[in-house]
């Protein structure tokens, strides 16, 4: 009995070496539980409906709590929020968190205790390093249409830094079939700077055009969040608002089946 299983193992590992494309056959590893990969399907996200605010939480947030969904490395929160016209979040504080807002539809009015008062619209990315603490409010800037935006929280590299705020506009043309860096630790290539060794990129890709994402740092993990479309990341088929975290690969293939938009969040795994 022992011998047989040994032989089986041997045969499979030989097959795997000779034909890398062959899988281990038979038993399928349940992907969602694999250590090197985590899959969060759109429908598995937490939902909150407050009337004026509809929110989908990829990870535990507010009234949605799932101990298995506490983030991906230093990536702690991905909220997909839809706010009714003129409604929003009243003045509230934050500290020691990197907060990135990305409007997907409509525009958002931001006001904070550093004296910033700005409107951020689709095409722009805003980052706030809360550090020692700040207060801000966020409102839908339109009185007619709802706003949809992503709010992403990343745990900071250094604690208790001086609060900082930045906002930049990115040309959608510069992300077609190529990775457009929008968030980085040093503001390289015109990106928004945050207090963490994290790199966020946006890409929109045409069908059947293969792209390869190469990590900035080998120690980081990469979390893919589908904004729109249908595509394969690695070998995993993903749909709108699905999330996939990959830990062990330095280069990851992306192949769109339809026109797709993807947010790539490369973050340190050690919290």
């Amino acid at each position, binding site marked *: 009995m022992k011998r047989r299983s040994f032989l089986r193992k041997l045969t499979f590992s030989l097959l795997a070496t000779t034909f890398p494309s062959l899988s281990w056959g038979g038993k399928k590893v349940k992907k969602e539980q694999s250590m090197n990969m985590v899959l969060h399907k759109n429908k598995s996200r937490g939902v909150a409906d*407050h*009337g*004026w605010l509809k929110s989908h939480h990829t990870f535990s947030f507010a009234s949605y709590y799932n101990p298995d969904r506490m983030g991906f490395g230093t990536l702690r929160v991905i909220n997909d929020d839809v706010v009714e016209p*003129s*409604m*929003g*979040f*009243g*003045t*509230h*504080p934050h500290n020691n968190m990197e907060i990135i807002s990305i409007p997907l539809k409509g525009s958002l009015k931001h*006001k904070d*205790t550093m004296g910033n008062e700005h409107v951020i619209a689709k095409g722009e990315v805003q980052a706030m390093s809360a550090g020692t*603490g700040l*207060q801000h*409010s966020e*409102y839908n800037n339109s*009185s007619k249409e709802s706003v949809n935006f992503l709010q992403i929280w990343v745990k900071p590299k250094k604690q208790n830094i001086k609060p900082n705020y930045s906002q930049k506009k990115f040309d959608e043309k510069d992300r077609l079939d190529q990775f457009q860096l929008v968030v980085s630790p040093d503001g390289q290539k015109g990106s928004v700077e945050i207090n963490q060794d994290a790199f966020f990129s946006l890409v929109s890709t045409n069908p059947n055009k293969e792209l390869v994402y190469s990590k900035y740092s080998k120690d980081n993990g990469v979390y893919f969040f589908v904004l729109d479309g249908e595509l394969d990341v690695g070998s995993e088929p993903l749909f709108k608002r699905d999330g996939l975290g990959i830990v062990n690969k330095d280069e990851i293939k992306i192949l769109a089946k339809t026109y797709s938009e993807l947010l790539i969040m490369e973050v340190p795994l050690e919290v």
Partner: protein
Amino acid sequence: MSKIVIIAGSNNKNLEVANEFKKSLTSKDVESEVLDLVSLNLPLYTPAAEVEGIPLEIAEYKKIIDNAQGFIFSIPEYNGGVPPVVTNFIAWISRSGDLNWRESFNGKPAALSSFSGSGGIQALVALRTQLSYIGLNTIGRQVRATYKEDLNLDDVNAVSDLLIQGMKS
């Protein structure tokens, strides 16, 4: 700086009411700001906590209150009374280190509203007494909504008008 500060005593239904007031004031070209008391997550005020130190952010909120020309409170009813976040917030403002803290409130108009499962009347009576005590001029007409009775936007508009009038006089 905002002319009217709208204080929300819950961050679900009463924040929604607060946002409706903001909408109404914006349509009348009056600036306002919503303060979401639940999200502020302030420590509980006790004399012992005060000795340990006044939370740094209190100075920021005190500034917001000082600059306000009028207030709107939207609160749920807790056991026939005012929710702890509201009294706790007022307690910290009164112990912010400014001996003249009453000047932050004295003579300014305040409107009251409540979204509450239990009707909110008793909470508003209790709040009215306290707001008068700290020096605010509370407006008689108030706004109420429950899960059975939807928020009446005409009420919101009318009370907003009364508050604006109160700021001018």
